[in-house]
């Protein structure tokens, strides 16, 4: 399998060239994206408080042969479970949208659930998350480009990188090699995260160069990536027990403290509340940990 993939990687530039020469097209659309080396989740630190982490010193893995100024976009065929694979493009002005985005509600990516949590921005836990953002290639309701992604991954994780690429291309009229690969654990229907790589071509990465892993997490929510089902992180799962802690709440400042924290003495009695429960639940309710005692 690996050897076959290597061959595909090697012959892809030739196929690309043949396509250009024979079709004479300025923009190419393909249905088979070149697969990058598969990222192992064991190489990624556990999600903490940042929506992404850098990989490989932030250097993408594009080869010299892949560097082209000819715009194209390729999307992997869905696998036997119906899951998206890598989406790969050379982003240029010529691919960018010229009209407003249409509806994508008809697409149901693997693991899709329509579920709301009050504390999630926009309420909905999941977005139909474009691997290659609409603002980059105008690819809208393409099932090979849409995965089940948390609001947090979509907006906090992926969007800033898409913005960076889109604005660079608009400003310079240059091209950016861009690849987004969803990473699944085993046969899970929901990706654990996405690997994002980008490199500006004409200036060899001077303008845009990154390689990151974006977590498909939502703070305060526990996701079963096998099915896409979710629950408040505070709710007990069938095979686990809640961890109960004791904190002192300041219901006015919405901060929580350890009972031994010196700041507790300065909380007005009417704003003070003793809480027994989990830290995750407090965070989900909008409370922030005190910066002194760091509970």
């Amino acid at each position: 399998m690996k050897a076959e993939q290597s061959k595909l990687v090697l012959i892809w530039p030739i196929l690309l060239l043949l396509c250009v020469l024979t079709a004479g097209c300025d923009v190419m659309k393909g249905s088979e994206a070149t697969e990058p080396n598969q990222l192992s989740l064991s190489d990624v630190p556990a999600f903490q408080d940042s929506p992404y982490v850098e990989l490989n010193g932030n250097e993408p893995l594009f080869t010299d042969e892949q560097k082209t100024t000819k715009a194209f976009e390729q999307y992997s065929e869905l696998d036997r479970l119906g899951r998206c694979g890598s989406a790969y493009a050379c982003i240029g002005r010529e691919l960018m949208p010229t009209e407003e985005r249409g509806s994508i509600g008809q697409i149901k990516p693997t693991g899709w659930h329509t579920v709301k949590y009050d504390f999630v921005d926009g309420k909905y836990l999941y977005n139909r998350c474009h691997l290659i953002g609409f603002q980059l290639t105008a690819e809208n309701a393409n099932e090979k480009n849409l995965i089940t992604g948390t609001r947090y991954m979509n907006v906090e994780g992926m969007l800033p990188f898409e913005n960076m690429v889109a604005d660079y291309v608009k400003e310079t009229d240059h091209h950016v090699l861009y690849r987004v690969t969803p990473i699944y654990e085993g046969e899970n229907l929901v990706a654990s995260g996405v690997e994002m790589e980008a490199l500006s071509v004409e200036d060899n990465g001077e303008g845009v160069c990154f390689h990151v892993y974006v977590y498909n997490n939502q703070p305060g929510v526990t996701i079963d990536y096998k099915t896409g089902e979710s629950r408040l992180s505070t709710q007990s799962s069938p095979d686990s027990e809640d961890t109960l802690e004791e904190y002192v709440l300041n219901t006015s400042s919405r901060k929580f403290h350890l009972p031994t924290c010196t700041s507790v003495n300065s909380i007005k009695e009417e704003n003070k509340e003793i809480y027994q429960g989990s830290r995750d639940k407090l965070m989900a309710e909008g409370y922030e940990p005190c910066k002194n005692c760091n509970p």
Partner: protein
Amino acid sequence: MNVMVCLDDRCGMAFHHRRQSRDRFVVNDLISQCGERRLLIEPYSTPLFEGFDKETVADSDFLSNARLSDYCFVERQGIRPVLSKIKQIIVYRWNRVYPADLYFDIDLSKGWKRILVTDFAGYSHKKITKEIYIR
């Protein structure tokens, strides 16, 4: 001296040793702001000013070497070490969020007075907000 910076919505300046974004209309405006006074930059910023009618002084230690009347366009470093020399800060806000690993290191809500805020359309950005702060 006068400092000019570009910031995103989270006061980010750069990511992976690169500027977050660029816009030729911003460059044009900061050149106008500078007028006849010297414009100091780090060597990395030089290509940004190519094609513009303004001579720049590229110096890897430009913040330390700047005179009081100079304008310094800062992209990839903090300015706190030269804070005492700064009399004016001009901020261009992208009104977007980009990835960042370098953030502006001055809290403009403390000890600084905003004397101008204005919006203009960029070349590749819908809305740029320009703000001028003095002590």
